[in-house]
């Protein structure tokens, strides 16, 4: 048991996003078991599910905020943290892992000061572990948005981060 770390990244939702969410919720609130699709829709609109969004969902769906939070933190598909402008995905598939991608992942965590699934406070970088991305020949491999980097060591981490700063 350990407490869930919640994002500190300031919320930047727009009125247009909120209107879109409320329209979707108006339909879903009538459906039994509508909370899951409601949260999926909310995540589709905002990219993640911060407290501001979960409060709207709880209010419209007439369930408590804790019930919403319980569902959000149960399913891996939901994220409490926004994605950064640069989404770093480190492959922890078997081939990459045996070639040391675990260490690379740790180096990113340390240098960015965030945990897996989180986003830096400036909203720039988010860090995720990915499954095999299908280029084991380049192991260990990672992606930053659409860019692919292969045959890495922990020494390359600082350089990759610097490239996007």
């Amino acid at each position, binding site marked *: *048991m350990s407490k869930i770390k919640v994002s500190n990244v300031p919320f930047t939702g727009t009125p247009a996003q909120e209107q879109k969410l409320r329209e979707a919720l108006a339909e879903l609130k009538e459906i039994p078991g509508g909370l899951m699709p409601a949260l999926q829709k909310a995540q589709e609109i905002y990219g993640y599910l911060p407290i501001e969004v979960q409060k709207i969902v709880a*209010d419209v769906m007439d369930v408590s905020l804790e019930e919403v*939070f319980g569902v959000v*933190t149960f399913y891996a598909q939901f994220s409490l943290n926004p994605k950064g402008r640069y989404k770093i995905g480190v492959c922890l598939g078997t081939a990459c892992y045996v070639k040391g991608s675990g260490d690379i992942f740790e180096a990113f965590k340390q240098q960015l000061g965030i945990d897996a699934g989180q986003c830096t406070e400036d909203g720039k970088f988010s860090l995720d572990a990915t499954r095999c991305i299908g280029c084991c020949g380049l192991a260990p491999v990672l992606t930053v948005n659409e860019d692919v980097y292969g045959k890495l060591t922990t020494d390359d981490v600082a350089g990759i981060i610097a490239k996007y700063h």
Partner: protein
Amino acid sequence: MVNLKINNIPVEVEEGATILEAARKAGVRIPTLCYLKDINAIGACRMCVVEVKGARSLCAACVYPVNEGMEVFTSTPKVLESRRTTLELILSDHNKSCLSCVRSGNCELQSLCNEYGVDQSRFTGATNNEPKDESTCYLVRDNTKCILCRRCVAACRNQQVAVIGPNARGFDTHIGCAFEMNLSDVPCVACGQCIVSCPTGALKEKEEIPAVEAALADPNKVVVVAPAPAVRAALGEEFGLPIGTNVEGKMVTAMRRLGFDKVFDVDFGADLTIMEEGTEFIERLTHGGKLPMITSCSPGWIKYCEHYYPDMLDNLSSCKSPMQMYGAVIKTYFAEKNGLDPRNIFVVGVMPCTAKKFEKGRDDENAAGVPDVDAVLTTRELARMIKNHGIMFTELPDSEFDAPLGMSTGAGVIFGATGGVMEAALRTVVEILEKKPLKKLDFDDVRGIEGVKEASYMVAGKKVNVAVASGLSNAKKVLDAVKNGEKDYHFIEIMCCPGGCVNGGGQPIQPASVRQDIDLRAARAKALYSQDAEMPMRKSHENPAVKELYDTYLEKPGSHKAHRILHTSYVRRGK
């Protein structure tokens, strides 16, 4: 009806009954942990597993429905081994500080481990060391003792509050609040129903015993104590007496032996409440005030209203609760009469309630410029003090409350059960408006443990519609009906806890096995109604001490002075 066999014992039960219920009827106890009658039945903990002939795997008896011809075996080696392993797995991540745990001796996990001979875990590994949540003034959550049975979660949802729930998943699952907020930062109403639902020591009240002991040891303090009506109907359970035993006399003796300078009765405060609230109701009824008027005795209900129905705050009676009235009278009237500085009086309330710990710290609850009440002990804390002082409770002689603020009527006594405040109010309001004595004092329509009760009475040529709700889910139903215009009530009694104060969050904790057989609400309420029936005075306005208080100090009910001392105000809190 369905016929089946439990351990070869034939038994007939109603269709839809569970194996657990059928076994009970056959005289067989099946152990449970996550199950709690009427609150939680989710088949999660696997303690209640049994073998069902023909079934592939073990079945959870608490949720498995019976079938015709079913053969169930509840204590085969396979069953016992499974239960033992379950306990070992629970213990592998449990803070086993049983020696000093507040629930030691009354812990469902501990008694099962004792029964199954499990004291060590074969399994070692990661354990949780979440810090305690001590953010509120009324409750402590220690998740290192939590077994994730979710009984507290179900109790909280049952109350329509739902501020706690399981967060995260798998081994990381823990009971907490949304976004890991502290309990003090979410709209919890402080009812403590989670505490009385918890099988272990993961939840308890925030103790105030040290503050009370310090006051008792301070020669400069006059320490005054008074119990709520419902306390006398349950305190005996802590000393092995049958549920529903009224221990008023022994309780008074015990309090005196603990060293309290004066032992008064919140029943007096209840009588006083009726005078003020009754007057307020008559005023609203006859002069077009805000109706329906809703009672304000239950601090959990008040906090709920402030969080969830802030638009109905004007419907609340402005009366302080009986406990706060008692405290306010002690620090004004009693202090003046005895030449005491209110700052040197330490007022203690013994309550069946955890929300009272919150109430005493509210704004506008300080008639003499100092808090009306200084400390609130739950019924359980009083029992702990009595045990700690070596007082042999069951052997104590009976004694009576001190005069004059220990004087009360049957109307005050029944405040502890759902419908009691309404009945007490009706006894007084009807007599005042009809200007003649009532023929029958029992208002049976508002008695009993149903969640919502309704009645209409012709009072002085006017039809008065009343409703009584206990438990916040029932309160919600009544409030929504009023808001939608479906119901036209004049007077509503709402108690936060199901069944009223007798079933409050500060009352002795009975294990699920007892609650399967005995409805605590009804058994404890019976003790209060019996006492009322036997009392010489049963109407609040006949209480001579109350009369004297008005004649010599407060002038009359609803006077300016009475308002200053006995009434309060509310705040919009929002969700």
